[in-house]
């Protein structure tokens, strides 16, 4: 009577079918690694590793070519740095406001607005960065000749940086806000009962309690910033420069890959392989950041009850 109606091996077949769907994820990672490794090894057979990793001149298309990847790594970090300097205060400020200060009605209007911002395609943000942020915000507001001045430059790292910053604000804001809301009311109430002001509660009690989530959100945001392509291609230019100066035009790793590999490129040349070498560097960087953020969350997570 307790016999199930379907036969046993039907069940196992289903399990294996579902498992194969899940295994696809491992296959994807393997495929990514494989597609990067072959040409990268081929690349390093032609270009010595210390030229690549320690050189600061990235001119792969000239005779003789120079493959110093630090130049475009600096470009990526340049844009990411200015983006995070914008996004961290704005994102965290919004998160604290939403979780501690905002009335439920305000929260209900602002949260969806942030979700809208999160859903905007990066090509739209890039267009906004180069056609509005650059001419209408950076050029008028930049103090004169500081660091070379912002006048007369059609592409600026700072424009891309602010665009990327705007793009990652929702990531920081929503994940941090979730983390802060997850802190039990008991801690809030206890702090208020002891006479703390609202600001003190937010900064001294809630913030540290939610720290793991907040840090994870920042690392995730940095990871997104480093991997972003369209905003950098549209707004930052295509001149590799080893600099963190925001009012220069630079080339990031992602924009190099995008502009070099667009459409049909012929296999076998060093140029082609350089795309994969740069891709490997990018992949490893984001992988490391992801692992770090997971570790951080695990280490600093406060477990309640």
């Amino acid at each position, binding site marked *: 009577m307790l016999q199930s109606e379907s036969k046993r091996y039907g069940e196992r077949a289903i399990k294996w079918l579902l498992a194969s769907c899940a295994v696809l994820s491992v296959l994807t990672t393997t495929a990514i690694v494989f597609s990067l490794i072959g040409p990268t090894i081929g690349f390093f057979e032609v270009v010595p590793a210390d030229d690549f990793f320690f050189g600061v001149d990235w001119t792969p298309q000239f005779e003789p070519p120079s493959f110093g990847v630090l130049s475009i790594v600096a470009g990526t970090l340049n844009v990411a740095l200015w983006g995070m300097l914008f996004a961290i205060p704005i994102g965290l400020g919004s998160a604290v406001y939403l979780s501690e200060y905002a009335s439920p009605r305000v929260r209900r209007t602002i949260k969806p607005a942030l979700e809208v911002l999160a859903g905007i395609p990066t090509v739209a943000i890039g267009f906004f960065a180069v056609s509005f942020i650059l001419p209408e915000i950076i050029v008028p507001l930049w103090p004169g000749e500081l660091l070379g001045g912002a006048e007369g430059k*059609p592409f600026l790292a700072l424009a891309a940086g602010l665009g990327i910053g705007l793009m990652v604000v929702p990531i920081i804001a929503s994940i941090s806000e979730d983390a802060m809301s997850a802190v039990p009311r008991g801690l809030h109430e206890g702090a208020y009962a002891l006479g703390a002001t609202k600001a003190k509660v937010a900064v001294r009690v809630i913030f540290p309690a939610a720290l793991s989530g907040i840090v994870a959100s920042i690392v995730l945001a940095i990871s997104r910033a480093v991997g972003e392509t369209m905003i950098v291609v549209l707004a930052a230019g*295509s001149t590799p420069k080893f600099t963190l100066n925001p009012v220069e035009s630079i080339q990031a790793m992602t924009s190099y890959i995008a*502009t070099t590999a667009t*459409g049909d490129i012929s296999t076998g040349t060093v140029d082609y392989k350089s795309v994969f070498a740069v891709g490997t560097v990018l992949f490893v960087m984001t992988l490391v950041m992801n692992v770090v953020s997971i570790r951080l969350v695990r280490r600093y997570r406060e477990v309640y009850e």
Partner: protein
Amino acid sequence: MNSSKWLAAIGAAMILALGVAACGSSDDETASGNGAGGGGDLSGSIRIDGSSTVAPLTEAVAEQFMAENSGVRVTVGTSGTGGGFEKFCAGETDISDASRAIEPEEEQACKKDGVGYEEVHIATDALTVMINNENPVSCLTVDQLAAIWGPDSKIGIWSEIPDLKESFDEELALFGPGTDSGTFDYFTESINGEEGVSRRDYNNVGEDDNATVKGVEGSPGGMGYAGFSFYTENEGSLKALEIDNGKGCVPPSVETAQDGSYAPLSRPLFVYPSEQALQKPEVKAFVAYYLENAGSVAESLGFVPLTDEQLTEAEAAAEKAGL
């Protein structure tokens, strides 16, 4: 709402999407715009790739051709003259756009892979050196250009240019195409004496000549070089430098390019259909159409149409090749 309704909803959405797509793809008449009444019994596809200078002209001719022959699909890529030849000689494209003549190494590569081709001269270009509107300079000699663009050049400010008559203290902001570009090849050969030889620290726009225009427009001390069409399309926002090749300053224009006085930067533009592709009737028709109609489209797009003499020559060569 149970799950089967959900699956039905998602399924319906997908079918709707596919339906629109299918309807769209069978609707070739509207797709080709308001042409001379569609029709034509040619069909097939033509793959064109190569020079970003020639591409706008090829695209315009292709649009008109497709309007009259709705069964033919033409795609135009811009991998650069060099990049285009690589694909062409590997058999991946039917026609290669080129802003310089095919080189010996490329000829070898084609021969090796058994790709024969015809060289069709379809227009002329006046490679233009563009500067910002604020720049008082109006003319530079070839030697001055070589000093600016040479491989060891360290010139960073306009006033450092030797023998400059006007005074201009702005920083030099250079823009130019990448090494796959025929424009790059032609410019470096004419100005620096050898193809591929150039200073490296300029803003490399790859195949995106529009970025050269944007860059020069946006920098007071900007200077960049690109095909004539990129200048004429943006005529109000940029200045074209007159070039002095020893016989006085000559501005780029249709006339100076046709009579050869705009030297050394006037150059022939080609399309190279492969012999295999020419077996296809639609490709043959397209090349013939191109020769016939390039002239009328050329000038409006900023190209220099062939002189009557050049046109007869080209048509004779095409006749001989069996077009």
